[in-house]
């Protein structure tokens, strides 16, 4: 019973962390689909989401307003970033966009550090009650918020891509640029939109994880790598893949650090990740041709 409840607790924690990774992976995937590039700035938007939420909370002392406003602000930052550094590229290619995103990440990180400070910041959990005890296990209510909000966001994204005209246009452009251009979808616009969605997803992740982990300017790279790994694990470019990959990575870390060694937590996660990718290169849900492009 003891080990059973420990496992259950790890399961919930793993799903919580996994949700965060899934959001970041989703942002990563959306930009990958529209540009073919790795977006290194993705993790910085997570940090920005958390830190701006903290700043706004300090001013308005309303977590809901602070987080919603922060996420919207970061989304604007995403759009602005695309307009300022991706759009001016005369002959964009995958490698160049990837490199530019590294520059963007460095610039964003130092900007965050200078404006929002170097100290880790945080704010209370969304609910008054911090923990719940259900069936012998203790769960942080914030973890439930994380899981719930992630789920809600994913449902919205699903309908956005499947039903809305803009979502369909994005998918069309990702599937076949030339064909999309012929039917009037502007590729530049879809790139901007993908940055907006990616920044939104990243900022949301940052806003909801901060009560648990605090937020500081130097966490961006770590978030970015985890999101990238989750995306690869699930299958680059796939929306359900981001979810599966994120959850798998979250659970892998939770159980790996508890049962094997927390010292080697990252090494274990990456080693398993590489093994999975060597066996199933396209990720859990990716189609082989997505990877082979």
């Amino acid at each position: 019973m003891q080990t059973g409840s420990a496992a259950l607790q790890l399961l919930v924690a793993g799903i919580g962390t996994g949700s965060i990774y899934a959001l970041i992976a989703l942002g990563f995937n959306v930009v990958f689909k529209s540009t073919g590039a790795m977006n290194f700035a993705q993790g910085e938007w997570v940090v920005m989401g958390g830190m701006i939420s903290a700043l706004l909370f300090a001013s308005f002392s309303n977590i809901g307003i602070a987080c919603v406003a922060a996420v919207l602000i970061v989304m604007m930052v995403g759009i602005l970033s695309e307009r300022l550094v991706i759009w001016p590229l005369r002959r964009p290619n995958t490698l160049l966009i990837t490199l530019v995103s590294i520059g963007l990440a460095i610039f964003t990180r130092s900007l965050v550090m200078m404006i929002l400070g170097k100290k880790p910041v945080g704010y209370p959990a969304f609910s008054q009650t911090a923990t719940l005890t259900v069936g012998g296990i203790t769960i942080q209510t914030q973890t439930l918020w994380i899981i719930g909000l992630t789920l809600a966001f994913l449902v919205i994204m699903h309908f956005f891509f499947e039903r809305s005209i803009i979502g369909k246009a994005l998918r069309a452009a990702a599937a076949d640029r030339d064909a999309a251009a012929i039917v009037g979808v502007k590729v530049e616009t879809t790139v901007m939109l993908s940055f907006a969605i990616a920044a939104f997803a990243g900022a949301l992740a940052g806003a909801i994880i901060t009560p648990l982990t605090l937020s500081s300017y130097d966490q961006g790279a770590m978030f970015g790598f985890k999101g990238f790994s989750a995306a690869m694990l699930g299958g680059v470019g796939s929306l359900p893949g981001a979810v599966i990959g994120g959850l798998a990575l979250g659970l892998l870390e939770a159980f790996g650090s508890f049962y094997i060694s927390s010292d080697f937590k990252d090494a274990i996660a990456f080693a398993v990740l590489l093994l999975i990718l060597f066996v199933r290169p396209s990720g859990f849900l990716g189609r082989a041709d997505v990877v082979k492009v």
Partner: protein
Amino acid sequence: MSVMPLKTTSPALRSPAAAAPAQRLSDHARLLIVWLVLLAVPFVSPNSYVVSLANLMLINVILIASLNLLMGYGGQISLGHAAFYGLGAYVSGVLGVKLGWSPWIGLPVAALVTGLSALIIGIPALRLRGLYLSMATLGWNAILVVMFNRLIDLTGGPNGLLGVKPFAFGTFALDTDARQFPLVWLVSLLVMVAILHLLRSRIGRALRAVATNELGADAVGINSFRTKLLFFVLTAGMAGIAGSLYVHINQYASPETFSVSSSILLVVMVALGGSGTYWGPIVGALIYTAVPQLLLDYEDAELMLFGLGMLLVLILSPSGLTGVPGALIKRFSGRAS
């Protein structure tokens, strides 16, 4: 009757084989001139600190030029070049500290071990295109950093590997910056020559062909996978050599030098110098050596300026800083005509 054009070439272009070696000689000559100029550094340096920076810069040349060969010419983005650098450093360093092996043996062993590890990663990772190699190398780097930190008995952990012996000829130890300089100078020159030779050969052309157009390369009979793997292994081996030099010259190594962030910065340096240009890595190495010295004390604004500068270079001159003069000339001559 056939209307096929018959030999109507201008005399100047009739003998490509004669034209090509002329070009080859000139690059060799230029390389030699640059390195001869560098040879003056220990003599004109005001203090040994400048010489130590020159040593580090030449090691960085090996590191960035080898990554440029893989990335700039081969189109393969490795996010783990610092891992191979670190593996070379720790293999050579640990062999010396724990088993008392001479650095002269440690260096080739480091190159072999890093090359071998690249082979093991490359075989599964290079079978597929896209971000696959980037992911595998990123993971490999993350794993190695954990190992450097946690295998404390072997590596000294976060405190670093201490007690590494310098290179030595008998009792004459290369333990001062000025004594180390000729060795680093020579090895970096050899690596630059090796890269030039590889590029000016059939397999170098095959690598560029694969990077430019893999379908076309397959069609003419190039085995793209083996070509990429060969260069992945070769460039990892070069990083291993750089690592061995680094550890025996500093007589110390610590994990953070070889982090994933370092790998990404190396990619940045390749791009800033000029991805896929022969001389770009020297510019990249200069920046890579100078920037941390500048940023050490004033981290705040400089880091932002660095990011901004990087963005400007990439947006205005995607071929890097070495492409700037060309771009300017083009702009001005365009205006003149």
